[in-house]
């Protein structure tokens, strides 16, 4: 009965993963091959999994190669960098690999997933290594570290990280007679949007139902999407509802346009075609936005996401983690690699190559970043925002599901004109259910 295959699409995959576990749980895994040589003449081979293609891929491959040629050569370590798809793909494969006992020694991991993997024993606490080698954790930006810690232990080191930020088409702003340094508060943001719409006809702001910017809005309004112990949402509070209402009013007036979460590419189309003057995006998009602007003959600047009560943005991106089911020798090799990858020079290199922010304060003093500041002063704004007001993301394992519900709330209220109070009341229960 092939029809049943459909019903079992998932089950079959799970089973295959589970079935392997019973058979091969004892083996060290693919990354273990080649490390058996007792003489130490052949290098310890470890695998490194990364996500995304293009510049990010090149950066990962280049760094792994540099490592192999320098520190790796010296200490007998050889890193094999392997592309695995998106963050979700990496996470899914990592789970399957864990069950079957063939995990890579080092992997990137999206920051909000750290807790789930740590709680289930997939990733190794790094605290002993950090202590042993005296890594200066204070050199990392504080906002990046919250998502590296589960309980009191470090489980990852910040790697390719970013924050959302407000992008502006300053050519349009100047056309509307506005200060190109951007709005500072929500009041100013509303004025900016109104003026831009009146003077230029373009939308003041184009946005989509995006969980990351919603987190930022809640922070800017002096609250957060989830409460302190991440057991419930702050959506159905006055501060939470005000976030929805503030943007809803701007959307209703026609000054701001918001599209559904599934339509995120429209925001890109809007800014590229100069149909909007401002938009929210990751700091990692800066290089791309600048080159698009150059091709289309307009200027781009960035500024902090405006505040209502206080400044605040969530961080994003990925950390480097080490897995548990590998030999001691491989763990040592993995640590050397993680330590090197997140060190000052490499952090600066990755930042310049990909557009992610540097994760280390000391990296800003390197010539790489100083040169970058000169050619692209906007990078400094991104780093200042990171330094001044960034915080971590929620790490509750149920947050992925809760995020989907939150996107539904934004779609309902901002895109489809649903009533705020009743939508929020209905969704609050569902979201809290997800977080249990």
């Amino acid at each position, binding site marked *: 009965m092939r029809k049943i295959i459909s*019903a079992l699409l*998932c089950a079959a995959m799970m089973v295959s993963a589970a079935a392997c576990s019973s058979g091969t749980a004892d083996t060290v895994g693919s990354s273990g091959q080649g490390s058996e040589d007792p003489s130490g003449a052949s290098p310890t081979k470890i695998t490194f999994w990364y996500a995304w293609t293009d510049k990010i891929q090149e950066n990962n491959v280049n760094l792994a190669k540099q490592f192999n040629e320098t520190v790796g050569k010296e200490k007998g370590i050889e890193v094999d960098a392997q592309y695995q798809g998106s963050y979700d793909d990496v996470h899914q494969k990592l789970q399957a690999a864990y069950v079957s006992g063939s995990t890579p020694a080092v992997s990137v991991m999206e920051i909000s997933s750290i807790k789930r993997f740590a709680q289930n024993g997939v990733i190794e606490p790094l605290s002993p290594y950090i202590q042993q080698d005296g890594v200066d954790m204070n050199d990392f930006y504080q906002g990046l570290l919250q998502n590296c810690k589960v309980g009191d232990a470090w489980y990852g080191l910040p790697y390719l990280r970013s924050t959302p930020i407000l992008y502006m088409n300053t050519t349009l702003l100047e056309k509307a007679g506005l200060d190109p340094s951007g709005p500072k508060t929500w009041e100013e943001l509303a004025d900016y949007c109104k003026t831009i719409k009146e003077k230029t006809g373009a939308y003041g702001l184009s946005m989509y139902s995006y969980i990351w910017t919603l987190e930022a809005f809640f922070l800017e309004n002096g609250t957060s999407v989830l409460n302190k112990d991440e057991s419930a949402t702050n959506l159905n509070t006055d501060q939470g509802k005000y976030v929805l209402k503030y943007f809803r009013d701007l959307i209703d007036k026609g000054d701001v346009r918001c599209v559904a979460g599934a339509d995120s590419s429209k925001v890109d189309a809007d800014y590229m075609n100069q149909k909007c003057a401002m938009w929210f995006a990751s700091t990692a998009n800066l290089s791309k936005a600048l080159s698009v602007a150059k091709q289309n003959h307009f200027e781009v600047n960035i500024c902090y996401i405006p505040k209502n009560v206080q400044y605040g943005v969530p961080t994003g991106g990925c950390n480097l983690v080490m897995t548990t089911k590998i030999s001691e020798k491989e763990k040592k090799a993995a640590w050397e690699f993680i330590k090197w990858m997140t060190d000052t020079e490499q952090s600066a290199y990755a930042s310049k190559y990909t557009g992610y922010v540097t994760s280390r304060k000391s990296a800003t003093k390197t010539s790489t970043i100083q040169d970058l500041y000169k050619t692209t002063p906007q990078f400094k704004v991104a780093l200042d925002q990171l330094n001044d007001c960034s915080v971590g993301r929620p790490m509750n394992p149920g947050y992925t599901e809760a995020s989907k519900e939150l996107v539904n709330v934004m779609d309902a209220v901002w895109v*489809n004109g649903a009533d705020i109070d009743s939508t929020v009341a209905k969704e609050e229960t569902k979201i809290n259910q997800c977080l249990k």
Partner: protein
Amino acid sequence: METNYALNGRVRTSAAVSKKSGAGKAGAKLLPYTMVAPSIAVFCVFILYPIGYMIYLSFFHWNLIGPKTFIGLENYLDLLHDADFWQVMGNSFLYMFLMVSFSLMIPLLLAFTLKQDTRLNKFLQGVLFTPYIVSLVSISYVWMWMMDSDYGLINYLLHLFGMSPVGWLSDPSVALPSLIFVSVWKGIGYNTIIFISSMETIPQYLYEAANLDHAKKHTVFFRITLPMISPTIFFLTLMNIISAFKVFETVNLMTQGGPMNSTNTLVYDIYQYGFQFYKIGYASAMGVVLMGIIGICTVLYFRALSRRIHYR
């Protein structure tokens, strides 16, 4: 697919029987079982075992990497009380009903008009069949562009005629019909060809007799064509019901179940719970429900219609 298996079984048995009566060896008795053993083994490993394991998992709380906790029927009870799940069920049934209706009725009429063996008809058949051979991924992207609410071709045409734009994929009340449209459009060619080839096997003398009796065109259609191709209709209905419940690619690529869950269907929901939210037990429970629905549909359909079908 059940029919296929049954058919294969029958063919193999009859072959074996003739061999046995011919050779008369006792060992030949085992031969048929040896011959089907590989396919039975594959069936057990990749279908029966996963079904059993899925049912087993549906009684557990499991995130794929942590320990499994037995929770009895809790996943099923949660499903019953989950408003989203009922919306998903509603979407799936609506999708199934509309898709099956349209992807049978339109091809039936097309086949009836295109069955004459002319050059134009051959060309039109080819045109209709093209979407079927294109990958669903490409089709999804093409339609995503055409259905785009700002830059899409369809809204541009509407604009030329002075009509207001429609959020084909972003309006919760339109998104599901849009997805149904894409699936129907893709499947029309295949169904038409099947209908045509089935119509071509109808003995010509029936039409000649009808002609002599001056039977009207619709009488010929309802009294001769339709009954004679009823096995094909039956087959396609069942296949379309099954594929409608299995819909995943278009949902995943075009809407991701949104906006506001309006295009979320069973298989996509199972995928989300299983591999995005890592609630394996809950996803398995949904899988069991889906299996039940498809099973019930199949049984009901065979019972209700198999007697009325004209097998030759």
